[in-house]
Protein backbone atom coordinates (compact mmCIF):
# COMPACT_ATOMS: atom_id res chain seq x y z
CA UNK A 1 0.00 0.00 0.00
CA UNK A 2 1.30 3.45 -0.86
CA UNK A 3 1.99 5.69 2.12
CA UNK A 4 2.07 9.49 2.38
CA UNK A 5 5.70 9.40 3.46
CA UNK A 6 6.48 7.11 0.57
CA UNK A 7 5.01 9.38 -2.10
CA UNK A 8 5.65 12.83 -0.54
CA UNK A 9 8.76 12.22 1.54
CA UNK A 10 7.41 13.30 4.94
CA UNK A 11 4.98 12.42 7.65
CA UNK A 12 1.75 14.30 8.19
CA UNK A 13 2.22 16.64 11.15
CA UNK A 14 -0.16 16.14 14.04
CA UNK A 15 -1.61 19.37 15.59
CA UNK A 16 -4.21 19.91 18.30
CA UNK A 17 -5.32 23.07 16.45
CA UNK A 18 -4.76 24.33 12.93
CA UNK A 19 -1.38 26.02 12.35
CA UNK A 20 -1.60 29.82 12.26
CA UNK A 21 0.29 30.37 9.03
CA UNK A 22 0.37 27.20 6.90
CA UNK A 23 2.17 27.24 3.57
CA UNK A 24 0.51 26.34 0.28
CA UNK A 25 0.17 22.58 -0.07
CA UNK A 26 0.81 21.86 3.62
CA UNK A 27 -1.17 18.92 4.97
CA UNK A 28 -1.75 18.23 8.67
CA UNK A 29 -3.88 16.15 10.99
CA UNK A 30 -6.07 18.04 13.46
CA UNK A 31 -6.21 15.74 16.47
CA UNK A 32 -9.01 17.72 18.10
CA UNK A 33 -11.49 17.43 15.25
CA UNK A 34 -9.91 14.21 13.93
CA UNK A 35 -9.66 15.33 10.32
CA UNK A 36 -6.91 15.84 7.76
CA UNK A 37 -6.62 19.37 6.40
CA UNK A 38 -4.75 21.08 3.59
CA UNK A 39 -3.80 24.67 2.88
CA UNK A 40 -4.93 25.22 -0.72
CA UNK A 41 -3.02 28.40 -1.43
CA UNK A 42 -6.25 30.24 -2.18
CA UNK A 43 -7.27 33.28 -0.12
CA UNK A 44 -10.68 33.64 1.49
CA UNK A 45 -11.78 37.26 1.27
CA UNK A 46 -12.54 39.23 4.40
CA UNK A 47 -16.11 39.56 5.60
CA UNK A 48 -18.35 41.75 7.73
CA UNK A 49 -20.64 40.36 10.44
CA UNK A 50 -23.09 42.19 12.64
CA UNK A 51 -21.77 43.13 16.06
CA UNK A 52 -23.66 44.16 19.17
CA UNK A 53 -26.03 47.11 18.85
CA UNK A 54 -25.19 50.27 20.75
CA UNK A 55 -27.52 51.42 23.54
CA UNK A 56 -28.53 55.04 24.10
CA UNK A 57 -25.47 56.85 22.88
CA UNK A 58 -25.87 59.37 20.07
CA UNK A 59 -24.83 57.28 17.17
CA UNK A 60 -22.60 59.03 14.67
CA UNK A 61 -19.54 61.22 14.63
CA UNK A 62 -18.38 59.78 17.94
CA UNK A 63 -14.88 59.49 19.33
CA UNK A 64 -14.00 55.82 18.85
CA UNK A 65 -10.92 53.76 19.61
CA UNK A 66 -9.71 50.36 20.78
CA UNK A 67 -9.88 46.98 19.15
CA UNK A 68 -12.58 44.54 18.06
CA UNK A 69 -12.97 43.03 21.52
CA UNK A 70 -12.33 46.16 23.59
CA UNK A 71 -13.64 49.32 21.97
CA UNK A 72 -15.03 52.65 23.14
CA UNK A 73 -17.46 55.17 21.64
CA UNK A 74 -18.10 58.56 23.24
CA UNK A 75 -20.00 61.74 22.48
CA UNK A 76 -21.38 62.02 18.99
CA UNK A 77 -24.47 63.33 17.31
CA UNK A 78 -27.97 62.60 16.15
CA UNK A 79 -29.15 63.74 12.75
CA UNK A 80 -31.69 66.41 11.96
CA UNK A 81 -30.17 68.62 13.29
CA UNK A 82 -27.09 67.17 14.98
CA UNK A 83 -26.98 67.49 18.73
CA UNK A 84 -23.94 66.79 20.84
CA UNK A 85 -23.79 63.94 23.30
CA UNK A 86 -21.81 63.00 26.37
CA UNK A 87 -22.59 59.29 26.63
CA UNK A 88 -19.80 56.73 26.62
CA UNK A 89 -20.22 53.04 25.81
CA UNK A 90 -17.73 50.17 25.87
CA UNK A 91 -17.78 47.12 23.59
CA UNK A 92 -16.45 43.76 24.78
CA UNK A 93 -16.78 41.91 21.48
CA UNK A 94 -20.43 41.05 22.11
CA UNK A 95 -22.27 43.83 23.95
CA UNK A 96 -22.11 47.58 24.51
CA UNK A 97 -22.29 48.83 28.10
CA UNK A 98 -22.96 52.39 29.22
CA UNK A 99 -20.28 53.90 31.45
CA UNK A 100 -19.39 57.39 32.75
CA UNK A 101 -20.03 60.38 30.51
CA UNK A 102 -17.66 62.80 28.83
CA UNK A 103 -17.36 66.11 30.67
CA UNK A 104 -18.03 68.19 27.55
CA UNK A 105 -21.03 67.36 25.37
CA UNK A 106 -20.11 67.44 21.70
CA UNK A 107 -20.17 65.75 18.31
CA UNK A 108 -17.58 65.57 15.53
CA UNK A 109 -14.96 64.73 18.13
CA UNK A 110 -12.37 62.05 17.54
CA UNK A 111 -10.48 59.58 19.71
CA UNK A 112 -7.24 57.61 19.95
CA UNK A 113 -6.45 54.63 22.14
CA UNK A 114 -5.21 51.07 22.08
CA UNK A 115 -8.15 49.56 23.97
CA UNK A 116 -11.28 50.50 25.89
CA UNK A 117 -9.24 51.00 29.06
CA UNK A 118 -7.29 54.11 27.99
CA UNK A 119 -7.48 56.80 25.37
CA UNK A 120 -8.17 60.43 24.58
CA UNK A 121 -11.07 62.27 22.93
CA UNK A 122 -10.28 65.58 21.31
CA UNK A 123 -11.89 68.48 19.49
CA UNK A 124 -15.45 68.47 18.28
CA UNK A 125 -18.43 70.72 17.83
CA UNK A 126 -20.71 71.96 20.57
CA UNK A 127 -24.46 71.36 20.54
CA UNK A 128 -26.52 73.60 18.26
CA UNK A 129 -27.74 76.74 19.99
CA UNK A 130 -25.17 76.68 22.79
CA UNK A 131 -22.85 79.19 21.20
CA UNK A 132 -20.15 76.59 21.59
CA UNK A 133 -18.94 75.77 18.07
CA UNK A 134 -15.52 74.32 17.23
CA UNK A 135 -13.77 73.03 20.32
CA UNK A 136 -10.15 72.41 21.27
CA UNK A 137 -10.92 70.44 24.44
CA UNK A 138 -9.17 67.15 25.17
CA UNK A 139 -10.32 64.55 27.66
CA UNK A 140 -8.44 61.46 28.84
CA UNK A 141 -10.14 58.12 29.62
CA UNK A 142 -8.63 55.86 32.28
CA UNK A 143 -11.05 52.96 31.94
CA UNK A 144 -13.51 54.47 34.41
CA UNK A 145 -13.66 58.27 34.08
CA UNK A 146 -12.95 61.10 31.68
CA UNK A 147 -10.60 63.85 32.92
CA UNK A 148 -10.05 67.18 31.18
CA UNK A 149 -6.43 67.59 30.11
CA UNK A 150 -4.54 70.18 28.07
CA UNK A 151 -6.29 71.64 25.04
CA UNK A 152 -5.22 71.32 21.42
CA UNK A 153 -3.63 74.40 19.87
CA UNK A 154 -6.30 74.52 17.15
CA UNK A 155 -10.03 74.68 17.75
CA UNK A 156 -11.33 72.15 15.27
CA UNK A 157 -13.79 69.33 14.70
CA UNK A 158 -13.51 66.09 12.73
CA UNK A 159 -9.73 65.90 13.12
CA UNK A 160 -8.25 62.66 11.82
CA UNK A 161 -7.14 60.48 14.74
CA UNK A 162 -4.20 58.11 15.11
CA UNK A 163 -2.24 56.61 17.98
CA UNK A 164 -2.79 55.88 21.67
CA UNK A 165 -3.29 57.68 24.97
CA UNK A 166 0.37 58.66 25.31
CA UNK A 167 1.20 59.31 21.65
CA UNK A 168 -1.54 60.49 19.29
CA UNK A 169 -2.14 62.63 16.24
CA UNK A 170 -4.92 65.09 15.41
CA UNK A 171 -4.82 65.48 11.64
CA UNK A 172 -6.33 68.36 9.69
CA UNK A 173 -9.90 69.12 10.69
CA UNK A 174 -12.64 71.69 10.33
CA UNK A 175 -11.65 74.99 11.90
CA UNK A 176 -13.66 78.19 12.32
CA UNK A 177 -12.63 79.32 8.81
CA UNK A 178 -12.86 75.98 7.08
CA UNK A 179 -10.70 72.90 6.66
CA UNK A 180 -7.10 73.06 7.83
CA UNK A 181 -3.86 71.21 7.02
CA UNK A 182 -2.50 71.49 10.56
CA UNK A 183 -1.44 68.33 12.38
CA UNK A 184 -0.81 68.15 16.12
CA UNK A 185 0.97 65.47 18.14
CA UNK A 186 -0.05 64.50 21.71
CA UNK A 187 2.71 63.22 24.02
CA UNK A 188 0.48 62.28 26.93
CA UNK A 189 0.56 65.78 28.36
CA UNK A 190 0.64 68.43 25.64
CA UNK A 191 -0.20 68.97 21.98
CA UNK A 192 2.58 70.20 19.66
CA UNK A 193 2.21 71.27 16.04
CA UNK A 194 4.01 68.98 13.58
CA UNK A 195 4.05 68.63 9.78
CA UNK A 196 1.01 69.84 7.83
CA UNK A 197 -0.98 67.77 5.37
CA UNK A 198 -0.22 68.55 1.74
CA UNK A 199 -3.88 69.33 1.11
CA UNK A 200 -6.20 70.98 3.64
CA UNK A 201 -8.74 68.40 4.73
CA UNK A 202 -11.20 67.44 7.45
CA UNK A 203 -13.12 64.35 8.45
CA UNK A 204 -10.58 61.92 7.03
CA UNK A 205 -10.42 58.25 7.84
CA UNK A 206 -7.04 57.92 9.56
CA UNK A 207 -5.10 55.43 11.63
CA UNK A 208 -1.63 54.32 12.67
CA UNK A 209 0.88 55.83 15.07
CA UNK A 210 2.67 59.14 15.58
CA UNK A 211 5.54 57.89 13.41
CA UNK A 212 3.60 55.89 10.80
CA UNK A 213 0.09 57.08 9.97
CA UNK A 214 -2.26 57.12 6.99
CA UNK A 215 -5.16 59.48 6.22
CA UNK A 216 -7.62 59.08 3.36
CA UNK A 217 -10.78 60.58 1.88
CA UNK A 218 -12.51 63.55 3.52
CA UNK A 219 -15.57 64.53 5.49
CA UNK A 220 -16.63 67.22 3.06
CA UNK A 221 -15.07 66.57 -0.36
CA UNK A 222 -15.68 63.47 -2.47
CA UNK A 223 -12.15 62.22 -2.90
CA UNK A 224 -9.94 59.17 -2.68
CA UNK A 225 -6.81 61.17 -1.90
CA UNK A 226 -4.54 59.47 0.61
CA UNK A 227 -1.54 60.80 2.51
CA UNK A 228 1.09 58.91 4.51
CA UNK A 229 2.97 60.31 7.56
CA UNK A 230 6.49 59.30 8.68
CA UNK A 231 6.66 61.19 11.96
CA UNK A 232 7.72 64.43 10.31
CA UNK A 233 6.14 64.87 6.90
CA UNK A 234 3.06 63.90 4.93
CA UNK A 235 3.46 62.37 1.46
CA UNK A 236 0.72 61.86 -1.11
CA UNK A 237 0.28 58.19 -2.00
CA UNK A 238 -2.17 56.17 -4.10
CA UNK A 239 -5.86 57.07 -3.99
CA UNK A 240 -8.85 54.97 -3.01
CA UNK A 241 -10.43 53.25 -6.01
CA UNK A 242 -13.84 54.76 -5.27
CA UNK A 243 -13.83 58.42 -4.34
CA UNK A 244 -16.30 59.29 -1.60
CA UNK A 245 -16.57 61.25 1.66
CA UNK A 246 -17.42 60.33 5.23
CA UNK A 247 -15.40 57.11 5.05
CA UNK A 248 -14.54 55.08 8.15
CA UNK A 249 -11.17 53.49 8.67
CA UNK A 250 -8.87 51.51 10.91
CA UNK A 251 -5.57 49.68 10.77
CA UNK A 252 -1.91 50.54 10.42
CA UNK A 253 0.17 52.40 7.87
CA UNK A 254 0.91 49.13 6.07
CA UNK A 255 -2.39 47.29 6.60
CA UNK A 256 -5.56 49.34 6.70
CA UNK A 257 -9.23 49.31 5.84
CA UNK A 258 -11.53 52.07 4.56
CA UNK A 259 -15.28 51.45 4.48
CA UNK A 260 -18.61 53.13 3.83
CA UNK A 261 -18.94 56.77 2.83
CA UNK A 262 -21.14 58.96 0.69
CA UNK A 263 -21.36 60.22 -2.88
CA UNK A 264 -24.06 62.90 -2.67
CA UNK A 265 -24.88 62.79 -6.38
CA UNK A 266 -25.66 59.04 -6.31
CA UNK A 267 -28.93 57.40 -5.37
CA UNK A 268 -28.67 55.84 -2.87
CA UNK A 269 -25.84 58.09 -1.83
CA UNK A 270 -24.59 56.10 1.16
CA UNK A 271 -22.04 53.43 0.32
CA UNK A 272 -21.04 49.97 1.51
CA UNK A 273 -17.71 49.87 -0.38
CA UNK A 274 -14.76 48.49 1.51
CA UNK A 275 -11.15 48.82 0.41
CA UNK A 276 -8.03 47.37 2.00
CA UNK A 277 -4.61 49.03 2.03
CA UNK A 278 -1.39 47.01 1.81
CA UNK A 279 1.09 49.82 2.33
CA UNK A 280 1.10 50.79 -1.33
CA UNK A 281 -2.33 50.36 -2.90
CA UNK A 282 -6.05 50.20 -2.12
CA UNK A 283 -7.96 47.11 -3.31
CA UNK A 284 -11.75 46.69 -3.30
CA UNK A 285 -12.91 43.89 -1.03
CA UNK A 286 -16.18 42.69 0.52
CA UNK A 287 -18.83 45.38 1.07
CA UNK A 288 -20.35 46.25 4.43
CA UNK A 289 -23.67 44.50 5.07
CA UNK A 290 -25.21 47.86 5.94
CA UNK A 291 -24.13 50.95 3.98
CA UNK A 292 -23.07 53.73 6.32
CA UNK A 293 -21.21 57.03 6.37
CA UNK A 294 -19.59 59.30 8.96
CA UNK A 295 -18.76 56.12 10.77
CA UNK A 296 -16.26 55.32 13.51
CA UNK A 297 -13.79 52.50 13.78
CA UNK A 298 -11.61 50.56 16.17
CA UNK A 299 -8.61 48.40 15.38
CA UNK A 300 -5.44 49.67 17.00
CA UNK A 301 -2.37 47.83 15.74
CA UNK A 302 -4.27 44.84 14.32
CA UNK A 303 -4.05 46.12 10.77
CA UNK A 304 -6.86 45.05 8.50
CA UNK A 305 -7.04 41.55 9.97
CA UNK A 306 -9.83 42.53 12.37
CA UNK A 307 -11.70 45.60 13.45
CA UNK A 308 -14.99 47.27 14.22
CA UNK A 309 -17.16 49.72 12.29
CA UNK A 310 -19.10 51.79 14.83
CA UNK A 311 -22.38 53.66 14.33
CA UNK A 312 -22.76 56.13 11.48
CA UNK A 313 -25.53 57.45 9.24
CA UNK A 314 -27.48 54.92 7.17
CA UNK A 315 -28.97 55.23 3.70
CA UNK A 316 -32.19 56.81 4.96
CA UNK A 317 -30.15 59.54 6.60
CA UNK A 318 -30.64 58.38 10.17
CA UNK A 319 -27.97 57.83 12.80
CA UNK A 320 -27.89 54.14 13.58
CA UNK A 321 -26.27 52.21 16.40
CA UNK A 322 -25.12 49.14 14.57
CA UNK A 323 -21.61 47.80 14.89
CA UNK A 324 -20.16 45.70 12.08
CA UNK A 325 -17.24 43.38 12.75
CA UNK A 326 -14.51 42.85 10.17
CA UNK A 327 -12.53 39.62 9.78
CA UNK A 328 -9.73 40.04 7.26
CA UNK A 329 -8.73 37.72 4.47
CA UNK A 330 -7.33 34.36 5.48
CA UNK A 331 -5.72 31.31 3.88
CA UNK A 332 -8.23 28.83 2.50
CA UNK A 333 -8.04 25.51 4.32
CA UNK A 334 -9.86 22.44 3.00
CA UNK A 335 -10.83 19.47 5.07
CA UNK A 336 -9.94 16.25 3.29
CA UNK A 337 -12.78 13.78 3.40
CA UNK A 338 -11.88 10.33 4.64
CA UNK A 339 -15.27 8.82 3.76
Amino acid sequence: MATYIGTHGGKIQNYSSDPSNPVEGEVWYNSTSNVIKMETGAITAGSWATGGNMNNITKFDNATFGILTAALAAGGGDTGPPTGGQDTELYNGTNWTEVNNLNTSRYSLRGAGASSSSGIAFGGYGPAGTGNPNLNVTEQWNGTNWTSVNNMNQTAQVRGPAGIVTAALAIGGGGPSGSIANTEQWNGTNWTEVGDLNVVNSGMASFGTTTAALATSSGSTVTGATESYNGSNWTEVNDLNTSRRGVGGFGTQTSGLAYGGQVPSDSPNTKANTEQWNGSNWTETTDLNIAVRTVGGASYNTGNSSGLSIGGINSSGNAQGYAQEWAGESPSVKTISTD
Partner: protein
Amino acid sequence: MTKTYQYCVAENWGKGFIDHGESSKITFVGLPGNVWQVPAHNKNGNLWIAKVAGIVKTKDEAQAIVDTEVQAAQAAWDALPDAQKAPAIENITRPTDITLEE
Protein backbone atom coordinates in the same frame (compact mmCIF):
# COMPACT_ATOMS: atom_id res chain seq x y z
CA MET B 1 -38.09 37.57 -15.53
CA THR B 2 -35.83 35.51 -13.30
CA LYS B 3 -35.34 37.06 -9.92
CA THR B 4 -31.79 37.91 -8.88
CA TYR B 5 -32.71 38.98 -5.36
CA GLN B 6 -35.23 38.20 -2.68
CA TYR B 7 -36.28 40.47 0.17
CA CYS B 8 -37.32 40.01 3.76
CA VAL B 9 -37.99 42.08 6.84
CA ALA B 10 -36.03 41.18 9.97
CA GLU B 11 -34.82 43.24 12.90
CA ASN B 12 -31.05 43.31 13.35
CA TRP B 13 -30.62 42.05 16.91
CA GLY B 14 -26.86 42.59 16.84
CA LYS B 15 -24.16 39.96 17.34
CA GLY B 16 -24.94 36.79 15.41
CA PHE B 17 -27.63 38.31 13.19
CA ILE B 18 -25.23 37.94 10.26
CA ASP B 19 -22.10 35.93 11.04
CA HIS B 20 -18.87 35.74 9.08
CA GLY B 21 -19.72 32.33 7.64
CA GLU B 22 -22.96 33.66 6.19
CA SER B 23 -21.38 36.88 5.00
CA SER B 24 -18.63 35.01 3.16
CA LYS B 25 -21.18 32.91 1.25
CA ILE B 26 -23.71 35.49 0.11
CA THR B 27 -23.99 39.26 -0.23
CA PHE B 28 -26.33 41.04 2.17
CA VAL B 29 -27.70 44.52 1.61
CA GLY B 30 -29.29 46.14 4.65
CA LEU B 31 -31.95 48.69 3.68
CA PRO B 32 -34.16 51.16 5.56
CA GLY B 33 -37.15 49.68 7.38
CA ASN B 34 -35.27 46.53 8.41
CA VAL B 35 -35.49 45.29 4.82
CA TRP B 36 -32.76 42.89 3.74
CA GLN B 37 -31.78 41.92 0.21
CA VAL B 38 -30.18 38.50 -0.32
CA PRO B 39 -29.71 36.38 -3.44
CA ALA B 40 -32.79 34.59 -4.78
CA HIS B 41 -32.85 30.86 -5.44
CA ASN B 42 -29.96 30.44 -3.05
CA LYS B 43 -29.76 27.85 -0.29
CA ASN B 44 -27.62 30.04 1.96
CA GLY B 45 -29.97 32.98 1.52
CA ASN B 46 -32.96 30.82 2.40
CA LEU B 47 -31.19 29.38 5.45
CA TRP B 48 -30.36 32.86 6.72
CA ILE B 49 -33.93 34.13 6.29
CA ALA B 50 -35.13 31.12 8.26
CA LYS B 51 -32.53 31.73 10.99
CA VAL B 52 -33.57 35.34 11.55
CA ALA B 53 -37.30 34.54 11.15
CA GLY B 54 -37.39 36.98 8.25
CA ILE B 55 -40.77 37.84 6.77
CA VAL B 56 -40.40 37.39 3.02
CA LYS B 57 -41.61 40.29 0.89
CA THR B 58 -42.05 40.72 -2.82
CA LYS B 59 -39.86 43.34 -4.42
CA ASP B 60 -42.83 45.72 -4.62
CA GLU B 61 -43.72 45.16 -0.96
CA ALA B 62 -40.13 45.72 0.08
CA GLN B 63 -39.92 48.83 -2.10
CA ALA B 64 -43.01 50.24 -0.36
CA ILE B 65 -41.44 49.71 3.07
CA VAL B 66 -38.19 51.37 2.00
CA ASP B 67 -40.08 54.25 0.35
CA THR B 68 -42.11 54.88 3.52
CA GLU B 69 -38.94 55.05 5.60
CA VAL B 70 -37.07 57.28 3.17
CA GLN B 71 -40.03 59.59 2.56
CA ALA B 72 -40.48 60.07 6.31
CA ALA B 73 -36.80 60.99 6.60
CA GLN B 74 -37.10 63.34 3.61
CA ALA B 75 -40.17 65.03 5.14
CA ALA B 76 -38.34 65.47 8.45
CA TRP B 77 -35.42 67.01 6.57
CA ASP B 78 -37.66 69.33 4.53
CA ALA B 79 -39.33 70.58 7.71
CA LEU B 80 -36.03 71.74 9.19
CA PRO B 81 -35.20 75.47 9.18
CA ASP B 82 -32.72 76.30 6.43
CA ALA B 83 -30.03 77.10 8.99
CA GLN B 84 -30.20 73.57 10.28
CA LYS B 85 -29.94 72.09 6.77
CA ALA B 86 -26.40 73.44 6.51
CA PRO B 87 -24.88 72.00 9.65
CA ALA B 88 -21.22 71.88 10.42
CA ILE B 89 -21.13 68.28 9.24
CA GLU B 90 -21.42 68.63 5.49
CA ASN B 91 -22.41 65.05 4.75
CA ILE B 92 -25.69 65.36 6.61
CA THR B 93 -27.85 65.74 3.53
CA ARG B 94 -31.43 65.14 2.41
CA PRO B 95 -31.99 61.39 2.13
CA THR B 96 -32.18 60.17 -1.45
CA ASP B 97 -34.60 57.65 -2.97
CA ILE B 98 -33.59 54.00 -3.07
CA THR B 99 -34.74 51.77 -5.95
CA LEU B 100 -34.69 48.05 -5.32
CA GLU B 101 -33.60 45.58 -7.99
CA GLU B 102 -35.56 42.58 -9.22
